[in-house]
């Protein structure tokens, strides 16, 4: 089975995410009324293959597989998929996967582009600090992603309740208060992880003449950190409405997804 590489595993994972996305459309059309596990199992199958892909790559490299854009993206998606599987076990959160699957599928397709994973790329730095830096930052993005998913669920349910749609009553989604709480908690967790990741990155050895806080990727991460901090502080202490907060969480994550690859490309520190 030598021919069966980690990329094949990831391809299978993305296929399962695709199936889960298709099934999610069906669930969406049905208004999330039936209490069932099909989507959870599809997503689980995807996450299992995804984990296998990362394990294979990690064992080949003898380190955490976060050396290029492909690996970073797959790590981010893995954190998102895993977290959504865990959260889906909470009462009335079973349909969380239906909202996560489209993100996993579309970003997973993007990650599969061959140019994102050039062969022979070797990490210049290795060690625990580097692994902590990469893993915490990517897990932070996963938490932000899941916060955005919960925010979408919140806005959908809030819209239906506001406009007196029967769908709001029939659906098996959690209460909007709970969805807001989950969104807020995940955003806080993400912010905490991002802080740890940025601090760990600052401690890592660098080439001469490459200051940490002038690197495009670091500036971008610091900007994200500020955006999430503002969102959380405004919601918790300044009485900003839940609607604006959730919209903010979604927009911030979409921005993260769209600019993640670009900043990585222009980052000297991440290409040295």
């Amino acid at each position: 089975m030598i021919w069966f590489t980690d990329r094949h595993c990831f391809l299978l994972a993305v296929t399962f995410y695709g199936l889960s996305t298709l099934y999610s459309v069906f669930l969406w059309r049905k208004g999330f009324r039936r209490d069932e596990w099909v989507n959870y199992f599809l997503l689980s199958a995807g996450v299992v293959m995804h984990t296998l892909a990362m394990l294979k790559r990690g064992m080949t490299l003898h380190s955490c597989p976060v050396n290029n854009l492909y690996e970073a993206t797959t790590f981010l998606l893995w954190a998102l998929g895993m977290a959504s599987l865990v959260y889906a076990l909470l009462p009335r959160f079973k349909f969380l996967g239906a909202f996560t699957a489209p993100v996993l599928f579309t970003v997973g397709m993007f990650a599969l582009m061959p140019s994102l994973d050039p062969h022979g790329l070797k990490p210049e730095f290795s060690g625990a600090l580097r692994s902590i830096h990469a893993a915490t930052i990517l897990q932070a993005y996963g938490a932000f992603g899941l916060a955005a998913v919960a925010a979408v669920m919140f806005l959908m349910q809030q819209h239906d309740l506001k406009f007196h749609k029967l769908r709001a009553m029939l659906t098996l989604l959690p209460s909007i208060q709970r969805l807001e709480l989950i969104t807020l908690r995940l955003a806080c967790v993400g912010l905490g992880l991002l802080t740890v990741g940025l601090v760990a990155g600052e401690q890592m050895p660098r080439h001469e003449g490459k200051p940490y806080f002038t690197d495009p990727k670091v500036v971008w991460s610091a900007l994200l950190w500020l955006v999430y901090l503002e969102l959380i502080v405004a919601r918790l202490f300044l009485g900003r409405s839940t609607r604006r907060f959730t919209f903010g969480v979604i927009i911030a994550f979409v921005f993260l997804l769209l600019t993640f690859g670009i900043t990585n490309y222009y980052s000297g520190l991440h290409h040295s």
Partner: protein
Amino acid sequence: MGSGADLAWLLTAEFSTLNLPLPRLISVVVIGLSHRSAPVELRERFAFAEGKIPDALASLRSAGLTVETVILSTCNRVEIYAATDLAPDVAFAELRRFLLAHHAFDGVLGEELYTLAEPHSLHHLFKVASGLDSMVIGETEIFGQLKKAYDLAFTRQHTGAKLNRAFQRAFNVAKQIRTETNIQRGSVSVMSAAVELAEKIFNSLAEHEVLLIGAGETSEKTARALQSRGVSKITVTNRSPERAATLAKELGARTVPFEHWPEEFERIDIAVSSTAAPHHLIDRAKLETLMKRRRNRPLLLIDLAVPRDIDPAVNTLDNVYLYNVDDLQSIAQEYLKLRHEEVARCETIIAERVATLLEAGKYAAGHSRQ
């Protein structure tokens, strides 16, 4: 596969050919009246007081009319489920005579009293247990009432193999229908729709305080429905402080003077309004100020008053959810419509389960253990 009646006929023919003494073939029959067949004036005339049911069961048995009996008497139906060795026509005539005599009824009774023999009697029992024959389709109260009626007969040894099996199967079918279909899903009354709505907004009702503006019957019913789902903190306000105090005492709530209710909005999360005020008590401008003081926490407003107490424009405010009586009624009606759509699925399950019961040869030719 033949029905139970066919099987009984075949067995009778077989025993006649062989010149053997016929075993006592027992079948389940139903006689009764319900909200579908009789008005309340007639139903109440035939209702059995709970304390009188044991005597009635004993009378039927001692008169040799039934071998096993269960009497179900609720506000919507009075029914006798009997396992009898009499031919159905004879059993129906005797049971009818018993009912008229027991309730000293000398009026004219026609279609109001229905009679059902196997397999229809079993089909009916399964439908009743599942709430399909109830006034509010899919309601669950009847399940408990039927269980209580059966338990009463069982503990006094008025049931045997035949009815035990039929009733156990009926309870089983009701549970199956409850889990496999949406027949019991949703709120079909305004009050329960309001409670369900609150549960869609708030995580746990136990943590939230309710303000009742108006101390009428509607407020009381809604408050009781909310209490049944965990609400413990209720504040009552009314133009007449005496009425507010009376209701507060009944609900275990506290009162606030009517002119001070806006101050409560900082603490409460659900407000139920049902006053007779001719104008809006809450308008957008007033609520906007109150919402700032609440730091934009979600607020559910239930306006049960006609004319309305709350300006519909408040629904445009962020984190405010306003439902009036029409909104809640339309939710209840939609749920009812959905329940009716589920009936066909339930009927299929019942038909299959009745057939299984009848196909068990032992059942069709079964004897009572008594």
